[in-house]
């Protein structure tokens, strides 16, 4: 092998392919031996050779590496290796100069057992709980009637049908935006995260359901993935998890705003039951009307009571009373006047009697006479007159004219 030239490459003096290839090979080799963990996306055993190619994928991202090893290594550490399994490999980067490709060459491959995976999930659960991803206070309430329901699920899956059928039965006008993704295997997590982002960014989508039917513990592992848990936590739209059966509790069940036990349950939680709502409205309307009628009837009663009061119902009573008052007064007036007239009569009689009693007529009758001077003055003594004065003498039966002869 020739050593790479120190001189810089230029358009006039470019480096040959072999030189560049060698430089790359040297750079890659610097990493040395590493332990790497991933999910087996593909295994290809070349017939007739002992070389085995594995596509090793990151379970949380669309990132993969090619691993080459030989059959003996596999048989020793992972004899039952299938696609989807988790493995830990001891490998070194290897540049294949013939084609300019790169792979990891593994000299040891161990399959990660289910027990270990579950133990790691427990650890992850504690970590996420400690970070607050499961906090009740962080849960967002579901809208009563979502404009559009986002649904992430497998294409033509039973879970998709369960969600759609049950939601439409409850609320026929429900709108869905459905994104189909892989729901198991290495592609599941990145695809689901992408779908969540798309739905979360859609302003019409007011709630997102993540649904998958039942499956083996390993099939459901993507729904306990840390990256997916964080993606759900980051969603601004409320998320309902509906994974597997009642007994399956993947980690996203703790992160989601609502955990539905099954896809059917998710449909029940996401939209109200139209028939039930109609019944409630009908009941409320009935009560409303009864209350209104009751109120009106009560007011009518009050009004009737007011109108039936004698002062309003029989307004002539008001006049009758006054007419009676007037009559009574008139009578009193009459009576009062009558008394006064009688009294006046009496007075008159008495006065006349007294007048009569005082009259001199009776005395004259007895033979007395009244002598008056010419001026009418009564003559009581001889000195009252002089000789020759004319006198009037009043008798009972008449008058005499006389003259004083002597005093």
């Amino acid at each position, binding site marked *: 092998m020739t050593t790479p030239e120190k001189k810089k490459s230029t358009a006039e003096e470019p480096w040959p392919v072999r030189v560049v290839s060698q430089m790359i090979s040297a750079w890659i080799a610097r990493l040395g031996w590493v332990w790497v963990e991933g999910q087996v996306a593909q295994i290809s055993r070349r017939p007739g050779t002992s070389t085995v190619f594995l596509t090793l994928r990151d379970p949380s991202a669309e990132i993969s590496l090619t691993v080459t090893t030989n059959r003996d290594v596999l048989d020793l550490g992972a004899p039952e290796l299938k696609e989807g399994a988790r493995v830990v490999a001891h490998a070194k980067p290897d540049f294949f100069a013939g084609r300019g490709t790169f792979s990891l060459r593994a000299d040891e491959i161990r399959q990660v057992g289910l027990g270990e995976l579950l133990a790691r999930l427990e650890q992850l659960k504690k970590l996420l709980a400690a970070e607050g991803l499961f906090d009740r206070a962080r849960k967002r309430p579901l809208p009563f009637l979502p404009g559009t329901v986002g649904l992430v699920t497998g294409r033509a899956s039973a879970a998709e049908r369960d969600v759609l059928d049950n939601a439409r039965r409850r609320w026929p006008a429900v709108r869905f935006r459905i994104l189909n993704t892989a729901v198991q295997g290495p592609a599941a997590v990145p695809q689901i995260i992408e779908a969540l982002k798309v739905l979360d960014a859609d302003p019409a989508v007011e709630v997102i359901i993540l649904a998958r039917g039942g499956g083996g513990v390993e099939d459901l592992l993507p729904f306990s993935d840390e990256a997916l848990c964080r993606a759900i936590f980051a969603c601004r739209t409320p998320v309902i998890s509906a994974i597997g059966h009642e007994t399956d509790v993947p980690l996203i069940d703790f992160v989601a705003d609502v955990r539905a036990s099954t896809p059917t349950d998710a449909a029940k939680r996401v939209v109200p039951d139209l028939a039930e709502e109609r019944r409630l409205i009908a009941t409320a309307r009935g009560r409303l009307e009864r209350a209104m009628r009751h109120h*009106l009837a009560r007011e*009518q009663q009050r*009004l009737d009571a007011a109108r039936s*009061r004698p*002062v*309003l119902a029989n307004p002539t009573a*008001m006049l009758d009373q006054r007419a009676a008052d007037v009559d009574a007064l008139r009578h009193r007036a009459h009576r009062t006047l009558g008394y006064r007239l009688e009294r006046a009569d009496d007075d008159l009689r008495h006065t006349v009697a007294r007048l009569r009693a005082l009259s001199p007529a009776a005395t004259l009758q007895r033979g007395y006479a009244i002598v008056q001077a010419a001026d009418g003055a009564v003559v009581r003594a001889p000195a009252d007159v002089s000789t020759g004065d004319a006198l009037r003498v009043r008798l009972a039966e008449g008058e005499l004219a006389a003259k004083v002869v002597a005093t």
Partner: protein
Amino acid sequence: MAAKDELSYEQARAELASVVERLEAGGATLEESLALWERGEHLAKVCQRWLDGARERLDAARQAADGRE
């Protein structure tokens, strides 16, 4: 229905009650009493109009609702 400047049901009812009370208490002049009585009749009519109107609206709303269902 009710004129714009007309009393609300509650105002009319309250005034009606006070008119009846004053009439029953007596003491007003005949002219005043007559005026009170006329006012009372007017108020009673206003109240009745409100109640009838409310009932009509209630019936109309129910018919509309029944028609839709």
